[in-house]
Structure formats: C-alpha cells, structure tokens
C-alpha cells in the first residue's frame, strides 16, 4: 500500500470515523462534539491539501478492490473529482462551524452531527468514485444520510417533507440502478474515462445506447432537481438552515449535477453524446428548468422557499453548460459547480441568521434589517448580485462562459435563456436587497440570541462573511492562476483533449 492508494479512503475516513464517534456522544457533550467535528474537518482539509499537491505533481491516486460479480470498488482522483472534493471539504468545514453555532439549542445533536459527517463522506465519495457502481453506492448512501437531517426538527411538516424527499430520491436511485445495471450488462464493468466508453456499442445496440442515456440523466436529474423532477427540493427546505445550505450547495443537488457531468463526459464522452444528438435535449431540459425555477421563485414570499427555487434554476446552469458542446461552455459548467456552491451557501447562511437571530422568515419581514445586521445583509447582497450575474461576483463568470459557449456550439438560444434568467433573477433578488437596505423598520427586530452578540453568533457571522468573500474573490480574481475558473478550464481541456 502506497500513499497514493491510501489517501482517498483516508479522506473518506476523516468524516466517516468522526461521524461514528459523534454518534456515541451524549447530547450534553457540546465541547467534545465540536472538537471532534473540527478535528475531522481540519484533518480533511489537510489531507485534501496533500492530495492537491500530489495531483499537481502528477501522481495518480487510486484505490481499487474487487467486490462481487467482477465489479471493482474504485476510488480515483482526477481533476474533476478534485473540483467537487475541494468544494465539499472547504464548505463542510465552513458549514460545520456555522452549524455549531446555529444548532446549539437543538435536540439530538449527536444524531444531527453524526449524519452530517456521513453526508459529507457520501458527497466526497460521489466525487471520488471512479466508476458508475462506486458512484451509485455513494449516491445512495447520500440519500440515506441526508434523510435524518431533513427531518431533524421532527415536526409534522418536516416528516412530511422527509417522506417526499425519500419518495423522490429512492425512486430516482432505483431507476439509476436499472440504468447502471443495464449499461454494465452491455459494456462490462468499466471505469470513468474521458472520451467515454460507449462508442463501440452504437452499431449493435443503438436503441439501448439512447435509452440508457435517458435513464441515467433522468434518474440523476431527480437530485439535480430538473423540472419536473424537482418537487422535493422546495419542500425539503424545512430542514435547519445549515442542512439546507449543504443540500443546496454541496451535497445532494451537486451529486445529481456532478453525476450528469460524469455521464456526459466520462461515460458517453461529450463528442459521442453530441454526435448521437442526445446533448441538445439535456440542454433544453436544463433551459426549461432555469426559467421555470426563476418564475416560481418570483411567487415565493418565504425567503428560504425563494432560495430553494433559485437553486432549482441555478443548478441547471451546470447541466446546461454540460449539455452544450465546446470547451468554453464546459468550463462554465464546471466552474459554476463551485460558484453556485459558494454563492448559494452564503444565501442560506444569511437566511439562517435572519431566522435564528431575529425570527424573520418572510421577505417582507426583512425591512430595514440591513441596519441591524449589516454584515449579514451585505453578504446576502453580494451573493444575490452574483446569482443575478452582476460582475464582478462569481456568477457572472459562469454566465459569461456558458453564454459564449452557447454561441460556439451554434446554439444562439443559450445566451438568450441566460439573459432572460438574469432578468428574472434580478426580479426576485433585487426586491429583497431593496427591502433589507432601503425600507425603514418601525421598531428594531428583537434579537433572540444572547444580548452580547451583535447581529448573530460569531461562528455564524464569520462563516457567512467568509463565503461571501469567496464568492466575490472567485469572480474578481477569475483569471488568477489558482482560481476556480483556472481549475475548471484545465479540466475542460483534459476532457476535450481525449475527445
């Protein structure tokens, strides 16, 4: 066993083992739980740093062992997985810090943080998976580990949302399994390969190639919340704010979107998928989702609900970019994986602060909150502008690339959709910004937390500010050599070089 084969499972273990130990803790052991959490998250950050160093120096990290029926359990680090790993690791760390503050007065904290760790293990597993079978295992593990988080509050509404969540994701998982099994039946067990593995099958199994693609994309589309499979997402926002943040930014929807990216680039191969004409339907589906999600967001008066619909819309940018052939749009798609994550997590963090500190959930209640919680409101403003696509916040860079990529592929409607979506995003985000800063409040909103905190607890506040700064920095320094954009471009080049 060399370091290169031991590192990937080790990275998974940091959160998995942490989770198991946390399960064993008593509710009252706040300090121990927080310490364990932070040690786990910290360790993971260090290991991922080593991993990045290794990958940059040309080492291949791969862990493979056989399971039944000739399947391999394969963990492998390529640049694409690195993208999601970095996102998960950093945002897990941030969200953990945030959640320690946010959840302090909740019941069943050991259960909560235990599953929280499991959830991150699963999402890193999704990133590390080197073939469809391994991907599927972690994908389902993700479903199961997030369910307890969604229903954490235990209220009637939460349980109902949990049911809906399970119906959707388990059905999606079952269908995905059929797709994976069917494909494996045709190709035998194969690893993810840039350029794809399906090309040889076209002559003998033409129909199957199409049907399997549809099955894979649609089943993954459940978690990626493609319309009309998105019904679970707005309901699931009853979960506590850190969970929503994680669900919307890193874990569940990202797993779906990431899966779609994997299928298009590493199973079918983008050139092949384009050649057989299956990409355009994906792009169209994504475009419909983008517009539909935004239109629905307009109708929501509850902040978290509006954010949830915004996620429906924004995650589909990733799918749209993946569904448009060309280096530029792929870059946009991949970079949006990161950008959407940091911007959306900021927005949910802010929503959590408004709810926790002031008990405000409805948008109209946020009147003048900018005066009482200036940093939170500023963070929200930055992220909201990013979502609209106002430069120089990160969201603009994604839109820029996907839009220009649309031209490159000869799909002129792509930038049109993006611009329409920007208008709609402005229509539902700018009123919030306006209400927060410019409408006067009759009397200050009572602070529900201990009086010594200014606008909220420091752990929550500074994590929120940090993610907002990330969102801004990712855009402002987009052309810096170590920006998310640079990484995304590197990956896109690899994906197309082989094609």
């Amino acid at each position, binding site marked *: 066993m060399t370091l290169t084969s031991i590192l990937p499972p080790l990275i998974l273990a940091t959160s998995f083992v942490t989770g198991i130990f946390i399960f064993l803790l008593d509710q009252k052991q706040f300090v121990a739980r927080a310490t364990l959490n932070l040690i786990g998250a910290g360790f993971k950050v260090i290991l991922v740093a080593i991993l990045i160093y290794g990958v940059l120096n040309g080492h291949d990290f791969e862990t493979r062992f056989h399971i*039944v*029926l*000739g399947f391999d359990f394969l963990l492998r680090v390529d640049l694409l997985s690195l993208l999601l790993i970095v996102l998960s690791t950093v945002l897990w760390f941030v969200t953990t810090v945030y959640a320690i503050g946010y959840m302090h007065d909740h019941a069943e904290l050991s259960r909560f943080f235990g599953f929280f760790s499991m959830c991150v293990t699963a999402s890193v597993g999704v990133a590390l998976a080197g073939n469809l079978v391994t991907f599927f295992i972690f994908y389902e593990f993700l479903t199961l580990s997030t369910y307890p988080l969604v229903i954490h509050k235990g209220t009637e509404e939460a349980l109902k949302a949990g*049911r*809906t*969540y399970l*119906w*959707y994701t388990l059905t999606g998982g079952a269908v995905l399994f059929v797709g994976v099994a069917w494909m494996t039946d045709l190709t035998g067990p194969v690893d993810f390969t840039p350029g794809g593995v399906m090309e040889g099958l076209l002559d003998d199994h033409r129909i199957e190639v199409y049907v399997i693609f549809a099955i894979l994309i649609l089943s993954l589309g459940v978690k990626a919340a493609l*319309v*009309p499979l*998105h*019904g*679970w997402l*707005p*309901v699931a926002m009853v979960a506590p704010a850190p969970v929503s943040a994680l669900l919307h930014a890193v874990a569940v929807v990202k797993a779906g979107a990431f899966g779609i990216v994997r299928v298009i680039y590493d199973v079918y191969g983008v050139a092949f998928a384009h050649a057989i004409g299956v990409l355009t339907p994906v792009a169209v589906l994504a475009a419909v989702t983008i517009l539909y999600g935004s*239109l*629905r967001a*307009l*109708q*929501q*008066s*509850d902040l978290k*609900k*509006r954010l949830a619909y915004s996620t429906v819309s924004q995650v589909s940018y990733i799918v749209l970019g993946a569904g448009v052939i060309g280096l530029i749009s792929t870059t946009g798609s991949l970079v949006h994986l990161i950008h959407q994550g940091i911007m959306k997590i900021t927005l949910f963090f802010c929503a959590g602060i408004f709810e926790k500190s002031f008990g405000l959930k409805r*948008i*109209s209640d946020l009147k003048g909150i900018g005066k009482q919680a200036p940093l939170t409101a500023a963070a929200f403003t930055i992220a909201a*502008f990013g979502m609209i*696509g*106002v*430069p*120089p916040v990160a969201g*603009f*860079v994604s839109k*820029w690339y996907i*839009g*220009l990529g649309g*031209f*490159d592929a000869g799909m002129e409607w792509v*930038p*049109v959709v993006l*611009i329409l979506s*920007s*208008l709609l995003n*402005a229509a*539902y985000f*700018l009123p919030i910004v*306006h209400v927060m*800063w*410019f*409408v*006067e409040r009759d009397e200050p909103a009572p602070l529900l937390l201990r009086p010594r905190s200014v606008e909220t607890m420091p752990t929550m506040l500074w994590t929120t500010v940090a993610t907002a700064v990330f969102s801004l920095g990712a*855009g*402002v*320094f*987009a*052309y*810096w*050599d170590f920006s998310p954009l640079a990484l995304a471009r590197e990956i896109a080049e690899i994906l197309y070089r082989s094609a």
Partner: protein
Amino acid sequence: MALLAIYLPFALAFAMLWRGIGVHARQVLSTLSALPALWMAMGPGGTDSLAMEWLFLGAQFGLDSVRQVFLLFTAILWAVAGLYAGAYLVGHRRDRIFFFLFLLAFSGNVGLILAEDVATFYTFFALMTFSAYGLVVFDGNPRAFRAGRVYIVMAVIGEAMILGAIFLIVRDAPGLLLADLAAVVSESPLRDVIIALTLAGFGVKAGMIGLHMWLPLAHPVAPTPASAVLSGAMIKAGLLGWIHLLPMGAHTSEAWSGIIITLGLVAAFGAVVVGVTQSDAKTILAYSSISQMGVMTIALGVGLAEPEAWPVVLSVLTIYAFSHGLAKGTLFLGVGVADAAASRTARLTAMAGLALAAAAIAGAPMTGGAIVKKALSDVISFAPGTWADRLEWLLVASAIATTVLLGRFLQIVDAKAQKRAEKRAHPSLWWAWTFSLTAAAIGVWVAVPLFAIDVPLPGLAVADTWDAVWPVGVGVLLLTGWWGVFRKRAVHRGIPAGDVLVLFTGGGRLMRRFWHFAETAGSATPEINFGPLVDRVVESERKRAAMSRIERNLMRSEVAGACFVMLLVIMIILLIQTMV
C-alpha cells in the same frame, strides 16, 4: 495612477461607514477622493495601458484623449457634488449611507472611463448603476421608491441588453479590448442586432427617447448632489458605451444613421415640449438633459454615416458632452443653492449664476455652449443625403427650444426662491457651487487648448456672435410672450413626469396578474410534487390492508426462515461463481 483613481473612492466609500467621523470629514474625504482622477485628467495623457491579466477576465486600464475629457468633467462634477453634499446633508441622520453609495457610484464612473476591456467596462458600469439606485431612493418616501423602481427595472433591462450585445461581439472578437470591437461589430453577421441592442441598452442610461422615462422621475427625487452627477456625469456613461460598442468609424450604415438621427431629433424637441409643462424645477432639468442628449445622439448618427468624419465628430461630441455635463451639474446644484438663499442678495446671486449656466447650455455667445454648438453645426454637414441641410436649421431650432425650456426653469426656481430659507446654508454649499459654476463658464475655453481638440474658438467677430445670439433671443422673446398669455390662468395640470411611462405600467400590472407575484399571491400556488401523489396511492386503505397481510405472513417464522435460507443459498452460489 489609474488604479488609485478608481480605488481611492472605492476604499473611502467604506471609510464613510465609520461612525467616528462627522459629515464634514466625509465631505472633505469625498472631495479628495476625486484628486487622482483629476490629476490623470489634467495630466499629459496618452499614458501606457496597465494590463492586469489576473484580475477579473484580464483587466486593462488606460486613458486616451477622448476619455480624458470624459474623465475631466466627471471628476470635477463628482468632486464638487461631494463638497456640496456635505453642506446639503448637514444634520441628516443617514449621511453615512449617502456618502457610501455616492463614492461607490463614483468609483464605478471613473472605472468605466478608465477601463479598456469590455468586461471591466461592464463591471464598473454595473457598479455605478446599482449604487446609484441607493441614491435615487435615498429619501425613502413613496415617490422616491416609485422612481427607484422605474429606474432599476429599466436599468436592469438595459444591462441585460448590453450583455446580449457584448456576447454577440465577443463571440467574434480576438480579445476583449474595447478598441478592437468597432471593427468586429462592423464585420459581424448579426451587426444589426448588435447595433439595436447597444443602442437600446446604453440608451436607458443616456436617456434616449423611448427609454428616457426614468430620468424625469429619478433625477428630481434624488438628493440634489446626486441628481447633479446623475444628470451631468452618469448619463454620459451611456454615451461612452455607444462610442465603444457601436461600429463607429468602421462601418457605414445610412439606415441606422437615419434612425439614430431621428431618435435624437425626437428627443431634442419632444423633451422640450413635455418639459415646459412641468412645474418642478429638477424635472424640467431632467427633460432638458434628455433633449441635450438627443442633440448628442444626432451627432452620433452623423458619425455612423461617415466613418472618415468620425474622429472629427467624436471630438466635437466629446467636448459637447463636457460642456453639457458641467453646465447641467451646475444647474442642478444651483436649484439647491437658490432654495437655500436666505437673503435677497443671495437669491439674486444664485439666479444670476443659474442664468449663466443656462445660457451655456442654450449656447449664448461667449459661453462654452456657443463654441460647442458652432462646432456641432460644422460637423453636421457630414450628415448623409438631405439630412445635412435640414439638420442645420433644426439645430438652431433646438437652441431656441432649449432657451424656452431653461427660461421656464429659471422662472420656476425664482418663484420658489422668493420664499426665503429660514436658515443660512453651510458656506461649503456656496463654495461647491462657485467651483462648479466657474468650471461650467470657463471649462470649454480651457479644455479645447488643453486637450488640443480640433474645435475653433470663436473670435469676437460680429457674425459669429450674431449666429449665437439670435436663437437665444428668439427663445427669450417666445418665452416672454408665452408667460404674458398664460400667467393669469390657473396652473394647469402638466403631463405627468415620465410621460409615456403610463403605457408601460399598465403592462406591468397585467403581467403581475398573469403570474401571481409574491406580494399578490403568497406562496400558496401549488407545485408539481409527486410525493403526496404517491402517498395517496400507497396509503389507500385497500393497498394498505393487502400490504399488512403480506407483511404479517412474512413475519411468520417458517416463511422468514425459508426466505433467509433461500437468500443464503443464492449468495453462496454467486460467491462461488465469482471465485471461479
């Protein structure tokens, strides 16, 4: 220096939020923040571009002679407006916020002038647009909120159109440098779409007719120093956008030229017609800005018809913008000064200054306005076809119209200033205005030789002077006559500010009804959700009974045992298979 010019206002914007300093410290800092920009504008020019590949999408900053003129009047206006704002906001409890937004918008305005690549330009344009929203709604009353809503809706639509145009251009461009884009546009297969999008997108900011509705609403409700920069400086950002993104000097299009000239003419005269019916001084000024931007639009149209003449037209256009920007800023600031006049002398002084600035815009002799109007009528001869002759006298007519409009403005300000202010204004109000007025009076005389602009400075020849005198004279006569006839009548209801906006608000309401927005519908509208559907099927009594029967049976020990053994056998078989 370029970075400092942008960064200093930006950084100081955040310093403004500090509670530890008073309004006068903010005033001084705000004024000082314009110094680097002023320095650059007055400097030798033609400095090397500063490329920062790592910043944003590869940012590049620099300054050419045209943008140097833009930078000069912009910096002057913001500097005096900042000084003025300190006096204007004494005792206002939210002056921190005002200065914060004010300086953010300023840094956006400087940034977009210094930007040499399209992404950076667009970024600073957006920074300016969105911070200016805060200035428009600053007073926080329903009128300001309405104006703000109109402003932001139109501005966002404008931004979207600009982005569309930029997408179309960049698709074919070798890079993002603004200087290369005109050629790209002229070659583009979608040239007409690009031109339309650019025209409309920046037209929102430039107050192009049809997209001008926000100006008469927003300019009056904003605090006076903000109106001054909105109407004097920020409006010119739209013009600069046109200059950058339209295929100027690279392409001839008589059709577009005709359209643009026509739009300009409609603005030049239409805005005056609506403007004279207004009863609020700042609203009239907003309409006057629309009208003057219309005149500049005409020149733009001429430039689009004759690529060879473009450099000449451009320099005239630039100096015209310079002249109008300073004078219009001075007029806006002067409204506040006249309002604050506590004595007869103060009032008369203020009115005299206002009259001087108004004369400059109308083009009375010896003012900067006369020089730029003369220069403009010279380049008009490049206009295509029969336009040239018509435009010459239309320009004269426009000068007459402007005189009438601004005369009306002076009357209204004077009438209002009769009622004396109770308290004397802070002296810096007067200082700021004096600076501004001086700049407006001598600006063109200084700028033309300073930037070596190819525009003749008039001698004292009688003929030249006469050309400038008579339109203004006719305007004054017309106004006097009109005033004599209508003064006795009761004040009639003018056209509501924003004129054609009425046509659109109905549409907005309709859309709102069609798609229930949050405020009207709440979040009760149902969603596609298969969850409850499945629940209903699964939970139906019959199915449940059947299920529980099956489950009961499965739990009987013999069944469970048999199943267990069966599964075990299958597993073993599978395992053996894989071993082999």
